[in-house]
């Protein structure tokens, strides 16, 4: 009995251990875009979202509902990782698997936005995930159940289609409802500078800079300029023309950044 439990818990706790990317990274970069998988010198991998925050994969199973491998993970300096606030946890990719918790026999499908919907009959589970539907049910640890919201129970097959919800959620950002025309830069201290220092976005994107440092900073460029930003204050600018836009911290002019607009 106890063995079964340890292995279950081990699956939760192993996340860091199994998150070693396939290739080793000789160099780190401070240039990355929203939607990138990032890591520091540690093993944990995060999803960098349009709101400038990093999202945690609570366990390996969650990661593999979204990605097959670690090939696309970008390593960044630890100091930069520190400057990016945690936004929350990634939930299962909708449609990929069904889930349950250990202490409740109810089985749920995952719907867009991290909603869990109770599958009320075995027939429905078979319709969605075939005769072997039981192999498609993952146990979500109790402590991560709170990351999900509960939606309406499913009583007819027409209410849900695994294929359709997967088509609608090709990225974690889409599942979380982030606007693709948003991007965010964190302002760290003078050592870390702008995080990411260089970012490529689509034309029409609004970039928001937020000061995550206790000291005052600003964002200054030829075409746009912020007020002085104290801790947790933000400034936004919309890039409506393509090109490469250099900017710097008006109070610490050695700190520079670039927004590439395509």
């Amino acid at each position, binding site marked *: 009995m106890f063995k079964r439990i340890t292995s279950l*818990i081990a699956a939760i706790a192993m996340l860091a251990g199994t998150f070693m990317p396939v290739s080793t990274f000789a160099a780190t970069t401070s240039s990355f875009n929203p939607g990138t998988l990032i890591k520091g010198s540690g093993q944990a991998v995060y999803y960098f979202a349009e709101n400038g925050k990093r999202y945690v994969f609570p366990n390996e199973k969650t990661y593999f509902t979204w990605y097959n491998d670690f090939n696309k993970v970008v390593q960044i300096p630890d100091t930069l990782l520190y400057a990016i606030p945690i936004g929350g946890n990634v939930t299962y990719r909708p449609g990929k698997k069904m889930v349950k918790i250990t202490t409740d026999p109810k089985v749920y499908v995952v719907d867009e936005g991290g909603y869990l919907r109770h599958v009320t009959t075995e027939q429905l589970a078979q319709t969605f995930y075939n005769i072997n539907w039981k192999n498609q049910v993952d146990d979500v640890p109790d402590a991560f159940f*709170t990351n999900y919201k*509960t*939606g309406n129970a499913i009583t007819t097959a027409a209410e849900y289609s695994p294929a359709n919800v997967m088509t609608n959620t090709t990225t974690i950002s889409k599942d979380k409802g982030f*606007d693709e025309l948003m991007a965010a830069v964190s302002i760290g201290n003078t050592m870390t500078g702008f995080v990411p220092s260089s970012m490529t976005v689509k034309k029409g994107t609004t970039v928001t800079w937020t000061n995550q440092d206790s000291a005052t900073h600003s964002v200054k460029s030829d075409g746009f300029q912020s007020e002085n930003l104290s801790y947790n204050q933000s400034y936004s600018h919309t890039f409506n023309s393509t090109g490469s836009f250099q900017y710097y911290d008006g109070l610490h002019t050695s700190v520079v950044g670039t927004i590439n607009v395509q």
Partner: protein
Amino acid sequence: MKSISVIGLILMAALILSSNVANAATLSAGTLIKASGPAVYYYSDTGKRLVFPTEKTFKTWFSDFSNVTTVTDAELAAIPLGGNVTYKPGVKLVKITTDPSVYAVAAGGVLRHIASESLAVSLYGPDWNTKVDDVPDAFFTNYNVGSEITSTSDFSPSAITALATSIDADKLARTTGQTTDNQNTNTTTTTPTAPIVTLTSNKSPLHLNDLVTISATASYATGIRQISLFFDGQLLNTCNYTTICNVDYHMPAYYQKDSFEASVTVQTIDLKTASKVLDLPFASATQAASEASIKVDRSTINPGQSTGITVTAAETVNVKNITIYVDTSTVKGCDYLGRTCQWSQVYNGNIGKTFNVYGIITDTSGRAYRTTDETITLAANDSPAVTVLTSKPWIYVGETVDVTVSGADDNGIQSNIVSDAQKAVLKTCSGASPCTYSAGPWSQTGTYTFYGKATDLLGASDERSVTVEVRNN
């Protein structure tokens, strides 16, 4: 790998519990529960079970697993999960592995960054770094990040711990985000047409000097761009790209108002706006205020005897009227008569009967201050009427003052005693004659309290206090 053994510990501890099987129907809120599995849950007053994500979280609330009730697996399954328990406020400092910032835990799972090491030392002692726990990244989302702590007056670990009397009480203080609200309720997944906004205050009504935490949550399908919090029209905090925004507001020591208004404005990613207003009344006359004091001449009397009640307002109050109540009935109202109101009456009834007395002072702006409640008891032997007087109401540094205690009682007085603020006896006089003690001189200014106690020949006694102010000359 380290975290495995930590979680293992919780399980082990839970496993060796003696079984104390209870029916779910008899569970009371606040109970720790488990079924045949190892995990222990907190049975919340919302009827849900809350998860302890780590053993360290459990240990901030409970010292051991001795009070866990076992329910059947079916009963446990019937209790929905209600989210995770967060650290007990004030007990520990926390950080995450991938960010060197150290946070104090405030009420409702709000993390507040400690701005400097010297501040950490002032708040948590020189060994503060032994009190820092690493919270796994995946549980960081159970917390909300609040404003930074920049001075010691901004945060008191002991006070904040004392307020968190239970996990339920702490959850109540929490800014109930939409995600938590939706938990296990049958909400539809349709896109809301307007942002859903909540606005709460951890205190209402408000008192002078209160530290009020105003919290707003907003949810909307395309996301929230900005939440702005206002107190009486003054912008206090702006939070970007988050669904939760908090701010602490320190009530001033004096305020000429009856009510306050907290408000929030929310802007969504697609530029829809919404707002909400929360009216916060100033403290009503339900709780004792330090501005109002009450004195009962004799707290124990014979049936048919009379005693006086004096209600006094502090000098900071612009008194409009003072009302004295006996057992919730108005017995005396004083209008525009200065700072005091007095009332004396005969109390009848059987021996042992008690009367609850208090006063309410209303100021010119309509605000009410209530005194503490005092009791007048009818007894076979009444307590003596005690008077404590000083020779001068205030003195200069270096001067002395006489404190005189005199008692009066039908049965005769056995003794009069003068004591200091700690009730240490300064002088005892036998018999009915007044007892005078020459106090001072003091080298420091301040207000000094003396107690006078009189005891009658049958052993009943009563005590009164007097204060002397020492000023600089």
